[in-house]
């Protein structure tokens, strides 16, 4: 089975997802076990595949043994392998966490939730490892639809936001598909590697420019790049706490990965119209970073604040993309990793607080540090990372991004990044003040002082703490990651 690892990454969660309504009908406990096993197997396979990619070069896996460009291939190069590891890891972690929210539900709801969750995982994993632009679309749709379902299961307000998300997301997907159509029209191929070769002489064509713009807009909508982010805040705010950490953490990041894949690998950052497009992306991203950060300051709901902060952070990735140089690439990819982990962690914290107190408003967070010390500790790390305080992970992505910006002599981006971390500091320290410094009203205080139960069940606490630790570990040990994986991933890399 060793040589089938790339397929297993996606197939195993998919298989379990397909059976989960059936399994749930008989035993929800079995379903839980199977789901965890699937996520774990997927994670292990991803790690294995990444190891292979790092030691022996990119791994091409042909589905049905049809060689590309006729068949579909999976390509595990360092970048996609890394993304697969990230996605499957977070999926596993959040799946452990999910359990407490679902115990009270009926079998059908549990079955559907597990199915949708695993499908989301499979879809995102499929997007990361695929080497075929249309296959990417298919998995994009799998992940989007399951995300719609997951978000919509959060109550009435969630349905409205999910509906908006459906509309906007479908527009995004259509744009992407039209872009693929343009590429297909002028090259006749759908395979990424083949496209790269066949696009080389055509890069000055207008059709490529249009394709680029379409793909950019499509994926920009999906990743909530600034002016296209309208769906995100509501969707993140109202969705159920069991699913949102994974959606918020990973989904937009995978879309960003797709853009990176297109611009760095398929188009090539220096060719044709690409620099022009990238420059526009950069300006938009910079604007988005600032405006979204300002918006985040104005929020009173914790999750909504995180949502706007997500928009800003996605701007960082867009900025890294737009820089188009090695440091920009490293910064963008590293920020993808960081932001996935820390946003996931912060949403886990939000969910934990909700579980414990039923509150999402920041003003209700008073003295949360006493009620849930470990959770808030993880929150601190996440917040510091968002602000970019060394040695948490967020600092280092800023490090590489600014290096890239300086290299390209784009000082305005430096200013934007600096300004945004200060804005981040404003809204995160507001929460910190609330959680650590403000006194809770007396009535509430008595309640939680009496409360002798542990702050959260272990299944929720462990993921939170693990991710909190991850933020620190990734930050401190970023150099091996960068030198051994990201540089290998950089096209023409290994510098």
């Amino acid at each position, binding site marked *: 089975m060793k040589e089938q690892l790339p397929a297993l990454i996606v197939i195993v969660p998919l298989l379990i997802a397909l059976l989960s309504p059936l399994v749930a009908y008989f035993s929800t406990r079995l379903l839980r076990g199977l789901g965890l096993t699937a996520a774990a197997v997927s994670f292990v396979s991803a790690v294995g595949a990444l190891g292979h990619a790092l030691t022996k070069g990119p791994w091409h896996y042909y589905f049905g043994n049809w060689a590309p460009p006729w068949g579909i291939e999976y390509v595990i190069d360092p970048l996609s392998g890394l993304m697969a590891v990230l996605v499957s890891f977070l999926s596993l972690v959040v799946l452990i966490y999910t359990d407490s929210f679902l115990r009270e539900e009926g079998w059908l709801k549990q079955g559907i939730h597990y199915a949708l969750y695993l499908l989301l995982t499979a879809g995102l994993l499929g997007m990361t490892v695929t080497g075929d632009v*249309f296959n990417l*679309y*298919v998995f994009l*749709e799998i992940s989007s*639809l399951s995300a*719609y*379902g997951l978000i*919509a299961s959060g109550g*009435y*307000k969630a*349905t*409205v936001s*999910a*509906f908006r998300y*459906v*509309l*906007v997301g*479908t*527009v995004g*997907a*259509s744009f992407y*598909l*039209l872009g693929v*159509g343009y590429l*297909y*029209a002028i090259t006749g191929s*759908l395979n990424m590697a083949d496209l790269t070769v066949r696009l080389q002489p055509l890069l000055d064509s207008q059709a490529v420019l249009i394709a680029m713009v379409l793909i950019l807009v499509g994926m920009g909508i999906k990743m909530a790049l600034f002016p296209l982010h309208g769906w995100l805040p509501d969707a993140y705010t109202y969705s159920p706490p069991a699913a949102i950490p994974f959606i918020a953490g990973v989904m937009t990041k995978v879309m960003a990965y797709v853009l990176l894949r297109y611009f760095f690998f398929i188009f090539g950052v220096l060719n044709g119209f690409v620099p022009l497009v990238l420059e526009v992306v950069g300006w938009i991203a910079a604007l988005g970073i600032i405006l979204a950060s300002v918006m985040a300051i104005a929020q009173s709901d914790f999750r909504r604040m995180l949502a706007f902060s997500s928009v800003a952070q996605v701007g960082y990735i867009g900025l890294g993309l737009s820089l188009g140089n090695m440091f920009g690439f490293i910064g963008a990819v590293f920020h993808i990793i960081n932001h996935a982990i820390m946003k996931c962690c912060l949403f886990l914290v939000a969910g934990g607080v909700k579980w414990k107190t039923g509150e999402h408003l920041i003003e209700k967070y008073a003295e949360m540090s006493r009620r849930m010390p470990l959770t808030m500790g993880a929150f601190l790390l996440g917040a510091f990372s968002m602000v970019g305080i060394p040695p948490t992970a967020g600092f280092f992505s800023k490090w590489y991004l600014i290096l890239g910006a300086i290299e390209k002599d784009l000082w305005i981006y430096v200013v934007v990044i600096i300004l945004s971390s200060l804005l981040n500091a404003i809204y995160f320290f507001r929460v910190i003040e609330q959680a650590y410094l403000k006194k809770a009203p007396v009535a509430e205080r008595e309640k939680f002082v009496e409360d002798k139960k542990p702050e959260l069940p272990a299944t929720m606490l462990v993921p939170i703490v693990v991710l909190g630790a991850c933020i620190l570990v990734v930050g401190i040990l970023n150099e091996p990651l960068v030198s051994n994986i990201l540089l290998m991933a950089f096209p023409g890399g290994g510098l």
Partner: protein
Amino acid sequence: MRELFTEHLIYWLILFLFMLGPYGMIFKKNLVKKLMSMNIMQVAVILFFLALGQKTGGTIPINLPGLIGAEHYINPLPHTLMLTAIVVSLATLGVSLGLLLTVQKRYGTLEEDELLRRMNQ
């Protein structure tokens, strides 16, 4: 003129249809209409792909005994892709209609302005 008509007019019509999607999405206030414009957009993409596969002298891509050679058949790949796209559009439609019903049940309206007003109450 004739070349223009035969070569690119269809693309233009298709792209017009495609842009109906964003237009409806932005300017139509009824959620069902938004859904429809979304669907129209998807159909436009399908048309676009199919238009790419056109070939003078090509017949439909189902084997005709005795007719061998790639030049005699239309490219089957876009058709395959678009089958998937159609299915996706149906799936999206089903989900979003389910969402709409839930919205209607809770808020009693599908007009966007009214909905926003009621949501904020």
